[in-house]
């Protein structure tokens, strides 16, 4: 039962990730990416990490994808200008993909697990209560750093996308 759900979810995840990359239209890519994020939220829900699944849905599907779709909408590029890359570059991409996958899989699958006999301790470790305690006690300094990072990135985005009064165009 669980294994079947896992395989279905994994197929959706990998297929939609591939479709994100292979579809020509950026809007289709964005929509396939939303499908991919939803299936990853399904994986989180299968791990019983409810809070993480909800945060993932809200942040990724809600905020990030809307931002991307609005950007795609703002720059209406015509499809004819998108020439595909040269054959040799595509070939090099496929070769490096296979090599990276081979190296990662070989390294990760040869590793010996530290826990030989896996058992469920029954301890509560992923409810919102426990997560909040860990976040606010052990990781409070990274938490504040994350707040500063978000503030700085917000100011940076506003500054970058502001229109210059005297525009000096880069001629290419």
């Amino acid at each position, binding site marked *: 039962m669980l294994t079947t759900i*896992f395989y279905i979810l994994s197929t959706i995840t990998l297929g939609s990730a591939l479709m994100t990359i292979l579809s020509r239209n950026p809007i289709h890519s964005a929509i396939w990416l939303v499908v991919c994020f939803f299936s990853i939220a399904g994986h989180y829900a299968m791990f019983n990490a409810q809070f993480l699944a909800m945060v993932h849905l809200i942040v990724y599907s809600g*905020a990030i994808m809307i931002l991307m779709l609005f950007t795609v909408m703002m720059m209406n590029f015509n499809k004819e200008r*998108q020439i595909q890359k040269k054959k040799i570059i595509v070939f090099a991409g496929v070769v490096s993909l296979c090599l990276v*996958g081979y190296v990662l899989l070989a390294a990760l699958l040869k590793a010996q697990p530290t826990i030989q006999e896996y058992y469920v301790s029954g301890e509560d470790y992923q409810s919102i209560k426990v997560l909040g305690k860990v976040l606010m006690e052990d990781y409070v300094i990274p938490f504040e750093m994350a707040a500063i990072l978000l503030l700085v990135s917000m100011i940076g985005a506003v500054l970058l996308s502001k229109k210059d009064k005297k525009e000096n165009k880069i001629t290419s």
Partner: protein
Amino acid sequence: MLQNILQEIGIQNYIILSTIMFCIGVFGVLYRRNAIVVLMSIEIMLNAVNLLLVAFSTYHQDAAGQVFVFFTMTVAAAEVAIGLALLVAIYRNIKSIDIDQLRNLKG
């Protein structure tokens, strides 16, 4: 029922899934010329790593892995905001977001 998910599926399957997903992201960065799709591929890579972090958090039954996922999400949100602002600025200047046309630094 959900507590023993790793007993039933096994951590190996999650490792394979995350690795393949990360490789798809790498391929997208190398293959596509549209800068927005390159950003999306980076998101796919970040999500693969997040999934593996949650899997190992469940494996060790420790909440710290999930807290790290929150920080990764924060960094991803900041990265997308800055990246898209940069893209808009580039598009305003050269009227294209084809990454092969950004070669002003080439001598």
